[in-house]
C-alpha cells in the first residue's frame, strides 16, 4: 500500500503559492502527529466520540495527500501496543513522504 498519492500531493503543493509550501509541511506534520496522539488517547480512554472525531480529522488530513496507509490504520484496531507503534511509524513515514514531495518546491 502506498504511503501517499504522490501525484495528488504534488498537485496540492503546486496549486498553492510557493511560500506556503514550508508552512503546509509544518502544519501537516503537526496535525498528523497531534491527531494521531488524540486518536490513540481516545482509544485508550475508550471515548467513542473522541475516537470518531479524531478519526474524522485524520481522514480529512490524509485526504489531502491520499495517505492510504494512515487511513487504513485509523480504521483498524489500535488497542494493542504493537498496533499503536505501527500506526505511529506509519504516520512518521507519511510525514516524511509528504515533505519529500514538497521539498523540491521550497524556494531556494
Amino acid at each position: 500500500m502506498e504511503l501517499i498519492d504522490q501525484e495528488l500531493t504534488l498537485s496540492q503543493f503546486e496549486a498553492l503559492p510557493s511560500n506556503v509550501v514550508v508552512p503546509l509541511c509544518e502544519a501537516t506534520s503537526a496535525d498528523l502527529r497531534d491527531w494521531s496522539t488524540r486518536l490513540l488517547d481516545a482509544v485508550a480512554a475508550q471515548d467513542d466520540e473522541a475516537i470518531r472525531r479524531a478519526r474524522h480529522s485524520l481522514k480529512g488530513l490524509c485526504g489531502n495527500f491520499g495517505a492510504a496507509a494512515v487511513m487504513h490504520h485509523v480504521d483498524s484496531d489500535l488497542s494493542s501496543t504493537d498496533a499503536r507503534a505501527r500506526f505511529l511509524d506509519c504516520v512518521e513515514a507519511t510525514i516524511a513522504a509528504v515533505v519529500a514531495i514538497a521539498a523540491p518546491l521550497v524556494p531556494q
Partner: protein
Amino acid sequence: MPGTPLSSFAMPHEVAAAIEPVDPAAQIALLERRLARAEAARAAAEHLLEQKSRILAAANTELTARQDKLSTSLERRTRQLLDAQRVAGFGTMLWDIKHQQLELSPQVQVMIGLEPGSAVKTYRSLVRGLLREDRRRLLDWMHGELLARLERDHCIKYDGQPCQGSPGPCEEALREYRIEVRCPAEKGGEGVRSLRIMAQFQVDSQCRPAMIFVTVQDITRQVRADNEAAALRARELQRLADLERLNKELLLAREQADLANDAKSRFLAMMSHDIRTPLNGVIGMLSLFDESTLTAGQRRTLALVRSSGDQLRVLLNDIIDLARAEAGKLALTPGPTNLVDVLTDGADFWRHLADDKSLSLDIVLAPDTPTWVEADSVRLRQLIDNMLSNAIKYTSEGGVLLKTRVLPSGWLRTEVIDTGIGIPAHRRTELFSEFSQLNLLGSEPGGAGLGLAICQRIIEVMGGRLGVDDAARGSCFWFEIPVVRIPVPKRVANPVVRSLRGADGRVPRVLVAEDLATNRIVVEGCLRKLRCEVHVVEDGQQALDAVGSGEAYDLVLMDMAMPVMDGPEATRRIRALPGELAQLPIIALTAFTRPEELEPMMAAGANDSVAKPIVIDDLYRAISRVLGIPVEDDVAH
C-alpha cells in the same frame, strides 16, 4: 576381203583417180613437195621441241628455286612454329581418323615425357604418359566425347537438324572439346605438369569428321597460380570468416556490454530515484528547522548539511536524466512557453550566486527574440541553469552575460559568456563527456561533470547544436535550437491567472472556518491564488464572532467538524443573525461526500459544498456559483 571389188572400199573420186593414168614426173614432184613439207614440219617440230625443252628447263629451274624457297620458308616457319610452341608451352596433334594416323609436334612429346621424334601410333600411347589417376578420366573423356562423336557419320547441328554439307564450317565443326590432365613434369620426379587438351574436329566436304586437331597447352604455371590464388582466396575467406566470427563475438560482447550498461543505468536510475525520495525528505525536514532557536555553530552545520543535500539532489537528478537519455527515454514535452520568462527566471535564479561572488550577471535579449514559443520549458530552463551555474562557478571576477539572438535560419541562439578561466581548445571535446571534469582550477568547484553531457543529450533531442567558443575573456557556451513561434496564448495553463472578481471588479472577501492547520493553509493558499482576501478562524464560534463583528465578508467557507462549535451550528446561528448577515453565502467544506453526511450542513442553511481534499478548481467553481460570477469554463488546470 577376197573377191570384193576395190570400188566397194573407195570413194567414187578415189576410184576415178585410181583408174586415171599416172604421170610419173608429176608423181615424183608431188612426192618431193610432200617430202619438203614433211621436212619443214619436222624442222619446225624440232625447233618447237627445242624451245619447249628450254622453257621446261627454265620452268623446272624456276620451280625448283621456288620449291627450295618454299621449303626453306616452310622449314623456317615450322621452326618458328615449334619455337613458338616451345616458348608458349603448347603443342599440337593431328589425328587422321580415316587413316588412323597420329601426328605429334615435338613439344607435345616433350610435355608428356617422350623423346622428341618417338614413334607414337595411337592415342593410347599418349595416355600412358599421364598420371595414373588422370588416365581413366582422359579415356572416359575421349570415349564419351570424341569417339562418340565419330560414331555419327555426319555432324549434328545444335538445332537437331542434320548438317547437309553447308559451305561454311558448321557449328558442330567449330565446337571445341577440352579437358585438363596432369603428367609427371620429369621422369621419376615428383613434380606435376598440368596440360590443357583442346580438340576440334575438322570435317570433310560432307561435314563428316575427317581429322581431330588437338592442341596441348602446358598450363602448369597457370594452374599453380590458380592454386595459389585459390589457396590465397581460401586463406582470405578463412580470414574473413575469422573476422566475421570475431565481429560476431564483438557484437555479442557489445550487446552484452550494452545490456550490462542498460542494467547499470536502470540500477543507477532506480537507486538514484529511490535515494532521491528520502533525500527530499531530509532536505525538506531541514527547511522546517526554526533557525532562530539554533546557535551560530548549529546554523553553520545546518547550512553545510543543506548544501550537501542540495548537491546530492542535483547529482541524483543528473544521474536519473543521464540514465533516461541513455535508455532513449529523454523525451521532450513541448508546450506554450514564455521564452523571455524562462531566460529571465533562469538568470534571476542564479543571481544570488553571482552576487555572492561579486560577479555581474546580465541578460541581453535581442529585440527579435520571440516571447512565446512551442518548447519544453523545463528542459530549456535546465540548459540555461546548467550553463549559467557553470559560468558562475568557473568565474572569479568580472561577470556572466546571457544573451540571445535569432539566426537567419530562424533558430534561436543562446550564449552564456563569462570572464572566467577559459577552456583550452584541445580540451573542449572532453567537456561534453559524462563525468568529465577538466580540473582547470586545480581542484573542481563541485559537481559530477554530468551537466554538459546532459545538456548535449537534451540538445540532441531538440535537434539543435551545442558548443563552446573563445570569448574576449573566458568562454562562450552556446546552443542553437529550432523554435516555433506561437501567438500569445489566450489563457495560460496556470491557475494563477484566474481570479474571482464580482461585477464591480472587487475581489471577494472570504472567511474560512477550519480547525486543522493543514486544511487552513490549503484553503487559504487556494483562495489567495484566486486573488481573494482571506480571513481564517479555527472553529464555528470564531466564525460566528467574525461575521458578527461588522467585517464585511462576501462568503464563508465552513468546515463541518470543528471543536467548540461545529459547522452546522455556526451556520444555523449565522442564518439567525439579523439583516443581510443572515443571507451571507456559506459553502460547506467537508470530507463527507455522501448526501446524508452533508445533510446537517445543508439543513442548517449552507448554500453549497466543496469536498476535501480541496481542489482549487472545485473551489473556484463553487465560489463562482454562489457569488454569481461567470465561470471561465475553458480555464486549464
